């Protein structure tokens, strides 16, 4: 492993992210903050939703921001760089195994997902307070779950980015990301599906369910949530699965 090259690849991605900071911030935070404002402030303030909904909503919004940011940060550059312009070629020719080039993309995506997730907390707090009740009983577990969520979003971005062509980006977001968000227990806890027995079981294939429930379990444990060991195991499995699939697809794209 050649750390100098790996860090230089990371520095390049950081440089590009810095250059696109404005649009990146808007893209990451605008939608979640609008959701927080409408559901947490308007709906609760006007009495249509109970005040406790504010605290229930926050982990879901955090999960959406992280997953959206991680997938976008890894998948979009890969999709365009593997197109006919082959912009990624100079990095594939860098003196490092090409699996590390893919791994670097994942690390860059993971960092962006973490920043996005952690930024949601203070921003949402400003909009939602008073009445927001966060109880981080076990900070280590919270950090662990947050890393696993960021990891699955970045690895998912690698797998998607190396499997989808540029002309199918729209389809990817409408067919994969949108159902994932709505069936990802982001705006409601998994237990809210108790009356939809089959649906409740089917949504368990959605990794976002474990992300939202995991953050709920570590940030607002006063609400019902899936068991933490199950969440940690499921997120770890999804992280590994997406990484393996992503690496395989990356190699297929990179070498003819």
């Amino acid at each position, binding site marked *: 492993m050649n750390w100098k090259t790996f860090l230089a690849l990371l520095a*390049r991605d950081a440089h590009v992210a810095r250059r696109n900071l404005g649009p990146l911030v808007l893209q990451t935070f605008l939608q979640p903050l609008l959701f927080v404002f409408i559901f947490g402030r308007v709906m609760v303030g006007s009495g249509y939703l109970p005040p406790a909904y504010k605290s229930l909503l926050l982990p879901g919004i955090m999960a959406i921001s992280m997953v959206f940011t991680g997938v976008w940060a890894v998948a979009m550059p890969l999709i365009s760089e593997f197109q006919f312009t*082959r912009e990624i070629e100079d990095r*594939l020719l860098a003196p*490092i195994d090409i699996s590390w080039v893919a791994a670097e993309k994942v690390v860059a995506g993971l960092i962006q997902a973490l920043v996005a997730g952690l930024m949601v907390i203070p921003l949402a707090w400003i909009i939602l307070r008073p009445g927001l009740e966060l109880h981080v009983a076990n900070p280590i577990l919270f950090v662990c779950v947050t890393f696993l969520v960021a990891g699955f979003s970045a690895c998912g971005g690698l797998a998607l980015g190396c499997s989808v062509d540029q002309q199918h980006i729209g389809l990817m977001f409408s067919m994969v990301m949108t159902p994932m968000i709505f069936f990802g227990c982001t705006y409601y806890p998994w237990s809210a599906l108790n009356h939809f027995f089959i649906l409740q079981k089917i949504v368990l294939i959605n990794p976002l369910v474990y992300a939202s429930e995991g953050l709920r379990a570590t940030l607002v444990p006063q609400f019902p949530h899936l068991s933490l060991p199950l969440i940690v195991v499921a997120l770890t499995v999804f992280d590994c699965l997406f990484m393996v699939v992503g690496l395989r697809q990356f190699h297929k794209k990179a070498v003819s």
Partner: protein
Amino acid sequence: MDSAIRTRSLRKVYSSPPPAAVGRDDGAVAAGKRSAVSLKTKDAKAQITALDGIDLDVAPGQIFGLLGPNGAGKSTTVGILTTRVRPTSGTAWIGEYDVWRDQTEAKRRIGVVAQRPNLDFTLTAREILLFHGAYFGMNSHERSERANELLDRFKLTDRADQLVRGFSGGMMQRMSIARAMMHDPQVLFLDEPSVGLDPQTRLLLWEIIREYNQKGRTILLTTHNMEEADTLCQELAIIDHGRIIAQGTPRELKASIPGGYLLRLRFGQHSPALLERLGKLAGVTEVRASGDAGADLYASRGGSLIPEIVNAAAALGVELSDVHISEPSLENLFLHHTGRSLRE
């Protein structure tokens, strides 16, 4: 002395059309060279043999040219030697490193200019060079000095801090070459480097290639430009349908054409008797029928043969309708070996 570049029995069979990375060149194979296509079974996908047993030895410090028409397998050869294409069988080395087993070490020693500009469009010209240097572990002082030097040498200093997205084709090509030279690689690969360049930039490029070679670096370039191959390369391999059909210095190769001169003749009608008679003319070494009523004459003289050809034709009542004389050249050599022009 060990070779700088070496391949043994290199084969590449594509089971789907070669991707864009391989470039326009070998894409032509996929597009329609039916002769290179073989079907394993009725249900199997069409297989395209891009390389069919390539053996190459390039000595260190040489400018070596791979000359051939579109679809000959030049870019696939470069692709394999630069780790971008996986060979179906055979081996390739850069110096002592097996390109597939020691990819990282091989990559450390090469610089690559692809057929299409594949610059990092999110960066400026200077940043492209600086980051490239960083990938290769150069320290920041070294990087910025070398970047300035290259930007100056390639006449890009005034656009150094602009995004390369807005560059013209020629500027992008210069930028690609500068980037490939940034880490001072021992072996430089240039895939059709002068395609799309104006004559002035082409001369600048040749000068830079020679200069780089004088530092003891090895250069492998692919081209279908005769002049480029002839003036720039110290050794050439002529490649067609994935095979090397001739190899040597440009002078050796040209000397190997029987007679040297090629006279492409067209007559009013086909006449085997005339071909026989032409073969007996003084200085003529070989006569080949070409097309319906044509003949290719390889001879040791050119224009002075014309009156004799006209007389021989007139004696048999055949009219000479067209003549094209070419002096000993690589184009003729290619034609001699393949029966086709390089530009066909």
